[in-house]
């Protein structure tokens, strides 16, 4: 009887001790925003299409709009091209007042997992001015630090 009781008590105590450790052992990954900046030089930016990919175990969990009008609404994405860390974004605007120079057009929200930080890559598939003609533009990504 005493043996059974002691065994159960010990089992309960192991449970008490090990449960928090088990919880800590899990690595669900961390979340971080990755800003997307487009630079169209002196030409007003009216439309763009970007392809962005992140290696490793990164998963995109949201697409936020840009910092200033007319790109404050989040761009659209191609669901058929969506994979864990790969996405194709596109949007356009017919607004009269279009941004020039370096503009934050969107922000990706990403969950990163694993020990290594993922390598982000971005490509401008197309960029266009107010007349719909292609314009040169460069893109770069700025991964924010883990807010925690």
């Amino acid at each position, binding site marked *: 009887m005493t043996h059974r009781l002691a065994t159960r008590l010990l089992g309960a105590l192991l449970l008490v001790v090990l449960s928090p450790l088990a919880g800590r052992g899990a690595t669900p990954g961390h979340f971080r*925003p990755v800003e997307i900046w487009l630079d169209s030089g002196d030409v007003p930016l009216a439309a763009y299409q970007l392809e962005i990919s992140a290696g490793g175990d990164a998963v995109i969990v949201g697409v936020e709009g840009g910092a200033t009008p007319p790109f404050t609404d989040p761009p659209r994405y191609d669901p058929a091209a969506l994979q864990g860390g790969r996405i194709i974004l596109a949007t356009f605007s017919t607004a009269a007042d279009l941004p020039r120079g370096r503009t934050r057009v969107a922000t990706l*929200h990403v969950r990163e997992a694993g020990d290594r930080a993922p390598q982000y890559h971005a490509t401008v598939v197309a960029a266009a001015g107010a007349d719909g003609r292609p314009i040169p533009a460069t893109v770069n990504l700025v991964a924010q630090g883990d*807010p925690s």
Partner: protein
Amino acid sequence: MRKLFLLALLVLVVALASSSCSSKKESAAPPSPTAPLARAPETSAPVAQAPQPPRDQENHVSYMADPQRNSPGGAQPQYAPQAFKRSASGAGGMMAADGSRERLRALGYGEADKNLAGAVGRRADERAAGLPRLGAGEELWVIARADWNQGATPPEPESLPRCGLNAKPPGSEQEIPLPLTHTDVKASVAGYIASVSVTQQYENPYQEKIEAVYVFPLPQDAAVSEFVMTVGERKIRGLIREREQAEQLYADARQQGYVASLLTQERPNIFTQSVANLEPGKRIDIALTYFNPLALHDGEYEFVFPMVVGPRFNPPGTANGVGAVPRGQHGSSGQATEVQYLPPSERSGHDIALTVDIDAGLPIERIESPTHVIDTTAPAPTRRQVTLHAADTVPNKDFVLRYRLSGEDVRGAFLTHRDQRGGFFTLMLQPPAELAQAERAPMELIFVLDCSGSMSGAPLDIAKRTAERALRRLGPNDTFQIIQFSESAAQLGPQPLAATPANLERGLTYLRGLQSEGGTMMIEGVKAALDFPHDPQRLRVVSFMTDGFIGNDPEILGEVQQRVRDARVFSFGIGSSVNRYLLDRMAVLGRGAVAYVGLDEGSQRAVDQFYERVSHPALTDLSIDWGALQVTDVYPQRLPDLFVGRPVVITGRFRGDAPTTVRVTGRAGGTVRTVAVAADPSDGGATHPALANVWARLKIADLEDRATVEPNDGTAIKQVALEYGLMSGYTAFLAVDSSRRTAGDHGTTVAVPVPVPDGVRYDTTVGPSAKREIE
């Protein structure tokens, strides 16, 4: 032995000391700079009734039941020994015997086991008796935790400290502070396709951080393709993901304190919206966009927006159903999906605004809503702007809007869309006009009336009147049968009766004597209606009259598919918030039609429509010659019959540019007939981008129908849904705001309770009182 016992005690002391130190460290830690929220004032009311340890401290308690204390009776279902048992690992995990742990795990709530157990622990504290009663040899491990979450029973909303956002109750109804304050619906209709944006406004009225969970309806054919979460001024587009992955990511974000939202589909017309880490006083908007084709019956287009999920009955043994429980009794139904309902003495402040902008392309002759008070303006003869009247904003019944265009009838329409994926089309097939001149063959009319508790009162009265009207119009060569079902099925007689005056009177007497009570064992009604020998001289028409408030829809649809054979199913949906998914699919699978009878309109219209369909031969065994078009992937794959007054919309993919003539051939009354439809793939240069999503949604519906007979892992549905970015049972929308972590843990889960639908009795449909009726 003694050493072992002492060792155990020593470990206990060390463990408790360690726990205490750890707790102090966490309490003393400075708050995160990214989480500047002020804590609730100390004078605020406690979160829950049960005593709780400090936040972020885990307080582990273990109970071991004494088998000698077992008693076979008296345990409440939620505390019953069958409900929980130790996991195989024994590492403190808890498992619901019905497998709900698997769902909790799938949801990714990291501490689901403990929280589930925590609920038991708290309830045990609240109950003077203390411990649940266990079966012989069983052990219950109870691990209490400081927080509430998805796995635990949430507190009553009034037990949470409030911010004073809600008004005092007017009259006898008490207004309950809830996190869903408003729903805004904006629809635009072009041709016969509606584009609808639904914005749900969530606002935390408590002084604690919460997770809001809302189970709500959408049209069963809605192709949900957009999801945007608005946090302050920032808009974050949600992405479509495989459901399991989305649930896991949401759980991770929630656990780590990020604002996140998740949309899942429980049935094609039932969805769950979860919003995590909604801070006190803060607001988050969730906007969904969907497309759906409008129904067209007898020259009238019908736009429908459902507002509340009706309380479903789940047959014994069902675990993947839709439970109906009283507010605050989370988890008590044991079903995978659960809707909480407000008792009649309570109401929520949640209201709804709705506008519909119609651009018909032809002059609109008449427009009306049989369900709501509307305001209408006419910017042009072909346009109408409809607004829900300010006095009719309680979301407790379907919104129905009908309009008719000028002209003799609506011609067959061929709409197309092309993009990088190829060409898509919809074709509206009109039945040949000469069908209306032909006489029908004798029929065997089987009425199947739902007499369960949810039909109590007005719905059953309407069903009786509808059946009576239909009976009185039978011809002398027809036969009829009346079947009722609730707990079981019963019928007027062993065989269908000839429609003689005496037999009709007998049938009417039987009809008038029907009473509603008990559960909805619809399967019994389906079997009784479809299984008896078919009279080869007559067309068997089976007419279900029900609100469809069942949680085992897939099972019913599977049975209909397997048993229908040559019969035709003509369903009548009775009530204010009918399960249109079930009724529509039964009619599709039964190659018949469906009509809806609301509480505020007579049954005359529905019966007239029904007789208009069955009084003339249908064009059956359809085949289509597509002319110069190369057509593939046509849905529905089994072409329906063409009945008088009821056009059929089919969709498909195509290649080809040349205008052509599409010929539809079928049999009617022993004669082969052909309908010709002009098809111009250029479509006058018009584009209809919604068609791709409408096509994909119909393909998913077809796959769902097949799965009711041949269950599968959903790979095909998932593939289509991911490619087209659509909601399905296997995909979900997820949005996470990773820019800021909120303070504290993930907070309390608060389900958004809803009113029972207009005309439905709470006492016969929700919770324990409803259950008593089925015991």
